[in-house]
């Protein structure tokens, strides 16, 4: 019986004007977003190529003449452009895009990306609090399309599931037949999900074709796997809003009331709730300095050391050998303290972002965003992973230099006497190179699991409530 009901409902939903308008709108947005992404991605690729070439040149100079001070230039460890940003941009556009790495004395400094008109970017220290700025309302990715547009459509498709039948007088006619109440709710739910599946899957197909045709984005199997995971998460998320629509339809008497209630829920869960914790950033507790201010605090740390050792240094100014011993002892300490300031604030910023995320987890829209960014390997999860990789590379690089310089047991990268470096050329191929590694799928799924579990709980709760409520619904 449910089959007949479902068939009729799906046809009616798909032929409705509301659906058709939303459908065209969604496909238009997907096309526009694809073009925006491709244009942006092209710029990122060019930029990445420039930076990679510059890093390569730096390392070649270093391999030829390790002691040449000119070769001790900074490297720029930048994030590899990834097509997954189109699935979920999340914090990608707000988090730092890379690090400056000082090659022969550990220093890792945050960069942010700025672009000139030609699309070729350069990197400068972060001068604002943008890393923990409130989330933008709009991000041109697939997550936004599902999070905002399709969830809205889900409410629109389901809000009059029961009230509409009642107003049309068909509810009495249906239940004058041997139809189970649960069947109607199940049918309405499935119908809405199938109807939503159409724009969702078409969006994914359009996006994939656009990326493929552009020949800019290499569509590896990994990307398609991520897209598939994204589709599954999207169904789980949209299910919440279909159930909210059904919920509104079972607790109200008229479609008008149901629509108002459904839209209020949507507004609260999708717009207000996910964006409002950003207001907390104005609280003192969440106050963090700008990147520029952090660098001045770093400089102050150096000054503090200078102040601390001023008398000792003055006393040794006639004894060059003893003075150099002091410099070699204190230098690494200064470097370590300077890096400590940077790491401390970066850790704090990440902690703030995570705290805000915990608050946001009341909203299914936020849960969905976190789940998609985890599965796609983007966002704050990506940045943290990237930072770890950059740190590991930095430590590994300096350990390598120490080893080839005769220090067989390198300890802290800060305890490094630059004069001990070898003056012989180094094999270029043996030098560690930085290339960001993708987060393994297993790790990404593990990261997404809590959000997926909460979304599933949302579904379970609403499902139970809707079935319970409609079981007692007055069909007259």
């Amino acid at each position, binding site marked *: 019986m449910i089959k007949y009901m479902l068939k009729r409902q799906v046809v*009616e939903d798909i032929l409705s004007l509301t659906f058709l308008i939303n459908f065209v709108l969604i496909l238009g947005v997907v096309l526009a977003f694809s073009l925006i992404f491709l244009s942006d991605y092209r710029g990122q690729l060019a930029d990445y190529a420039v930076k990679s070439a510059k890093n390569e040149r730096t390392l070649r100079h270093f391999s030829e003449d390790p002691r040449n001070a000119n070769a001790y230039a900074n490297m720029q460890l930048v994030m590899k452009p990834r097509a997954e940003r189109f699935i979920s941009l999340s914090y990608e556009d707000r988090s730092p895009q890379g690090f400056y790495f000082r090659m022969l004395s550990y220093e890792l400094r945050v960069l942010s990306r700025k672009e000139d008109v030609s699309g070729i970017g350069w990197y400068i220290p972060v001068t604002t609090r943008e890393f923990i700025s409130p989330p933008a309302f709009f991000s041109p990715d697939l997550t936004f399309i599902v999070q905002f547009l399709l969830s809205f459509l889900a409410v629109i498709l389901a809000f009059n599931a029961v009230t509409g039948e009642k107003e049309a*007088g068909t509810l009495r*006619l249906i239940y*004058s*037949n*041997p139809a189970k109440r649960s069947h109607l709710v199940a049918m309405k739910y499935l119908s809405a999900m199938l109807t939503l599946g159409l724009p969702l899957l078409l969006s994914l197909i359009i996006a994939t074709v656009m990326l493929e045709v552009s020949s800019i984005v290499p569509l590896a199997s990994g990307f398609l796997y991520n897209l598939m995971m994204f589709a599954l998460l999207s169904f789980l998320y949209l299910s919440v809003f279909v159930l909210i629509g059904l919920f509104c339809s079972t607790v109200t008497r008229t479609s008008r009331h149901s629509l108002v209630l459904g839209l209020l829920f949507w507004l609260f869960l999708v717009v207000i709730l996910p964006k409002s914790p950003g207001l907390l950033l104005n609280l003192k507790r969440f106050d963090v300095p700008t990147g520029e201010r952090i660098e001045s605090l770093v400089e102050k740390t150096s000054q503090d050391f200078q102040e601390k050792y001023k008398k000792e240094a003055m006393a040794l100014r006639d004894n060059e050998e003893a003075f150099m011993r002091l410099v070699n002892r204190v230098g690494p300490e200064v470097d370590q303290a300077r890096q400590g300031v940077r790491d401390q604030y970066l850790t704090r910023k990440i902690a703030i972002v995570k705290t805000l995320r915990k608050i946001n987890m009341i909203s299914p829209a936020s849960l969905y965003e976190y789940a998609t960014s985890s599965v796609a390997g983007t966002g704050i999860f990506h940045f943290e992973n990237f930072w770890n990789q950059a740190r590991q590379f930095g430590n590994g690089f300096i350990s390598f230099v120490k080893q080839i310089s005769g220090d067989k047991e390198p300890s802290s990268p800060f305890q490094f006497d630059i004069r001990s470096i070898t003056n012989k050329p180094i094999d270029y191929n043996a030098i560690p190179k930085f290339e960001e590694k993708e987060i393994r799928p297993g790790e990404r799924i593990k990261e997404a699991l809590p959000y997926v579990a909460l979304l599933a709980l949302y579904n379970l709760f609403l499902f139970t409530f809707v079935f319970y409520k409609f079981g007692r619904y007055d069909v*007259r």
Partner: protein
Amino acid sequence: MTNQQPILKADDLSKRYEDGVLAVDHLNLNIYPGEVYCLLGANGAGKTTTINLFLNFIPPTTGTCYVNGIDVTKDPLEAKKYVSFVSENVMLYGNFTARQNLDFFAKLGGKTNLAKSDYYQVMRRVSLQEKAFEQRVKNFSKGMRQKLGISIAVIKDAPGILLDEPTSGLDPKAAEEFLEILEELKKEGKAILMSTHDIFRAKEIGDRVGIMKEGRLVMERTREELQYEDLVKIYIDYMKSEPLKI
């Protein structure tokens, strides 16, 4: 007739709503195959509540409704296999054609193997215009919708039919056509319970006519008895009088 089992039976049926209103008060009713029972009464007399109780839309406070001998409260899905329903305003799926609506409700009623010609045949039988068969229902007049509603009941072919003021708002010709269809269904042996305000048509079609007032069945007359009595006068007298203790 009394040797047969009633298709529709109300046994000491009462319904008190949550607001305290007693909508149906100890109603006893037996409707047999081939019989049309017309329930008359003012608005709020309990006619529609009685039909709602037969359809298990609401649970009774006391008493039992039976359809084809099946307790409606205990086994509603089984009971509903044996009853069809036509409401005052048959509102169907506007974006679907008459045939598609008929197909959908026929399947809900358990008729899954019908061909297009079967639907056409039923729609012809209820005198729906041929050209309307494949037209969207949203453009139908009330009379056409009522005909389609009765065709849904016809195609289900259930032994009991419940009609909730089916001729209300119909023009005289349409109402007359509607009653002709009922007459045919009666001849086929259907047990029909029709609530109505239309005293004249109740007298014309009903084998028995009952008058409800404040939830009670205050009067019942057979077709034979009504040949010698003025139903209009009886009805007006009962409506004016205080509730009777019967």
